[in-house]
């Protein structure tokens, strides 16, 4: 494998590992703020118990997000120096604002939020919780502005091969930014909704039916049921925006080779880029046209429009985009089905979580990480869908890569991958461990979970 491919795999692996954790912390910060507010207004201990459990998940996710994020800020330089050399004048300020308005805010107030409860007044602790949630959201905002700008660049001019900013307003509010930010924030909300529901369902099934588990479960299911229709709508809007600005990506998502009206929605197919056609197609007639243009005969862009005269494709690789998109949508459908069924059972049986059938609870457990699957699939769709461009129409991915010897990239790739695999296992393991420890602690009549320093004698 050459340096380019290895560097792409390395950055892809890093960013995939990284995004898992911000996806949790962005929304979980707000859920914790909600728990804290409910406790402040009601004085009911169950909200604080829920806070204490989930703040551990938050701290763990935050730590993993921080360390994997630092890795990425260095990899811009170690592996992709061409990126900053070409578009540094635009990417630079956006990244700088992320560090300055978000990173320090989160990091400092996280310390107060985690360890300051007995050292600061209640209002300051609530404020710290708010500022951490606000900081994670600001961080997401700035990085998504940059990501959106790479997809739909605006507000700049090229001088001697280097991008110069001409209009910061146009750079920040570039055409795909509002859609991407909304789509990602909702994705984070859904990830956390199903993490809350899934882990709480596990605790519930194991017989831990305490008040804090109950509020976590209900909060998760309610949040999921509320957000998923919003997400389907936002995703649809984002798709329309993509069709306007990045038609080749939409063509790959739909597996559509020839520009045509009455395009079918393909439920399954095996895109063959050499023969330039699909095999084993199963589709619903006209539906892609209806979804993307809201007319049965609306015209959908085809991949064959994006081929250079010499036959080099100027569109993204079709199969990964096509499959990733289907994984995302499929996961979203499962989320819709489960969360609405659960809320329906709770509403009609009027017994709260007691009214949930056991198979539904069992199904929620593996769904704890469904948000991860959907988020990753969505990012693969959009980022692979941008190829061969790094910044659409401005520079290709190949132009940015560093001339680091391939064996060196391969070595570090192997190291990163093994570290990430180990950490991912440890993370999931510890979540399940925390879920089981809560029950044991309660059985012994000790409602609090171990603090930062559990005594080894336990």
């Amino acid at each position, binding site marked *: 494998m050459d340096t380019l491919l290895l560097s792409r795999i390395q950055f892809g692996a890093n960013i995939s590992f990284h995004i898992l954790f911000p996806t949790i912390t962005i929304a979980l910060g707000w859920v914790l703020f909600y728990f804290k507010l409910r406790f402040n207004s009601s004085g009911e201990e169950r909200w604080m118990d829920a806070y204490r459990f989930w703040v551990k998940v938050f701290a763990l996710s935050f730590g993993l997000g921080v360390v994997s994020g630092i890795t990425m800020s*260095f990899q811009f330089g170690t592996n992709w120096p061409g990126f900053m050399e070409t578009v540094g004048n635009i990417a630079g300020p956006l990244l700088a604002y992320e560090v300055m308005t978000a990173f320090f805010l989160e990091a*400092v107030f996280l310390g107060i939020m985690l360890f300051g409860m007995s050292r600061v007044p209640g209002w300051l602790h609530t404020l710290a919780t708010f500022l951490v949630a606000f900081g994670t959201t600001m961080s997401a905002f700035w990085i998504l502005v940059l990501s959106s700008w790479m997809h739909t660049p605006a507000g700049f001019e090229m001088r001697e091969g280097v991008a110069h900013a001409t209009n910061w307003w146009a750079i920040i509010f570039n055409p795909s930014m509002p859609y991407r930010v909304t789509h990602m924030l909702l994705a984070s909300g859904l990830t956390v909704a199903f993490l809350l529901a899934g882990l709480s369902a596990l605790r519930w099934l194991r017989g831990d039916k305490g008040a804090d588990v109950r509020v976590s479960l209900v909060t998760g299911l309610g949040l999921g049921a509320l957000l998923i229709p919003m997400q389907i709508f936002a995703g649809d809007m984002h798709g329309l925006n993509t069709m306007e600005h990045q038609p080749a990506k939409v063509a790959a998502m739909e597996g559509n080779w020839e520009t045509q009206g009455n395009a079918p929605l393909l439920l399954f197919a095996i895109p063959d880029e050499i023969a330039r056609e699909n095999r084993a197609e199963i589709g619903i007639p006209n539906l892609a046209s209806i979804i993307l243009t809201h007319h049965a005969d609306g015209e959908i862009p085809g991949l064959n429009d994006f081929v250079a005269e010499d036959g080099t494709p100027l569109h993204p690789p079709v199969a990964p985009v096509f499959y990733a998109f289907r994984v995302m949508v499929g996961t979203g459908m499962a989320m819709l089905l489960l969360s609405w069924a659960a809320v329906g059972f709770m509403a009609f049986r009027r017994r709260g979580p007691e009214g949930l059938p056991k198979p539904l609870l069992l199904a929620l457990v593996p769904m704890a990480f469904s948000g991860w699957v959907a988020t990753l699939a969505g990012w693969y769709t959009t980022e692979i869908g941008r190829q061969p461009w790094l910044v659409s129409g401005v520079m290709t991915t190949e132009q940015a890569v560093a001339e680091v010897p391939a064996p060196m990239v391969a070595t570090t790739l192997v190291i990163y991958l093994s570290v990430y695999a180990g950490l991912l296992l440890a993370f999931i393991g510890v979540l399940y461990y925390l879920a089981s420890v809560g029950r044991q602690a309660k059985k012994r009549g000790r409602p609090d979970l171990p603090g930062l320093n559990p005594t080894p004698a336990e």
Partner: protein
Amino acid sequence: MDMFGDPAIWLPLAFASLMGLSILIYVCLDGFDLGIGVLFPFATEAEKDRMVASIGPFWDANETWLVLAIGILLVAFPSAHGVILTTLYLPVAIMLVGLILRGVAFEFRAKAPARRKRLWDLSFWIGSLMASLAQGFMLGLYVMGLEMTPFTLFFGALTAVFLTVAYSFIGAAWMILKAEGELQVKAIQWAQGGIWGVVLGLGAISLASPFVSSRIFDKWFTLPELYFLVPLPVISAGLIFLLWGLLRSLPRESDALCAAPFVLTIALFTLGFIGMAYSFYPYVVPDRLTIFEAASAPESLMIIFVGTLVVLPMIIGYTVLSYVIFRGKATELRYD
């Protein structure tokens, strides 16, 4: 905004100063975090908990100064960022893996099952060690002008050890401030055992820089500059003797002067840093690329600069707030 003269001159200068300040703050603050990690094998189980508790609320913000420093290099001096980081590809990767292993251990060692705690303590130690050694190695290579020869690699290996010991020294100084009783006595011994790292580190860099580059030699050893520069090494030497004497007299009645070693160490690091900054200015890649050549377009720097003027005082403000909230001796860290 031409009131300070040409923005293509003063903006790169402002960002170079800001980057320097971030690096210095990082070296002092994450220096003591990493140092505590390096000292881990010398502590008992209970002491380890206390040591982690003394840095738990701070380490994340401390590490963010590294992100800011590398961020400024990335955004203000993009071409230098590329040259430096591709040259230092492997040590950077080692440092990053170290920072990952160290950073996650904070959370995992407290939340994982008790039988796994030892594993995460190991990860904390190894991670701190990897990050410190890698940073020291990069420092040495930078002083050597980012050249890769057997000699520069050897020098890098030396500075790797010196910086790691220097970090353990400032870590010990932090523990003298934050610990009580037996652990504090231990920390004083650690500091006494580690002071040579600071001395040799400062000495090696001070001696090597002028001999690697005749430009740096000329900057130091000409009149009348020499008169202004002589106080740097003289005050540094004075501080080292002061620290030496102080450490022998600690702990004192009612814990007097327990903060002094930490404060003096920061002063010492600062002097060393000023000396280095003087040597290398105006270069960001030694003898190859100046801050003016490497700088981004002035209009892009300006928009960051304006934001920095607003945000940096706030950052410093709430950072100080957090050190005030968690002042005093380290107690057991709990989530309530």
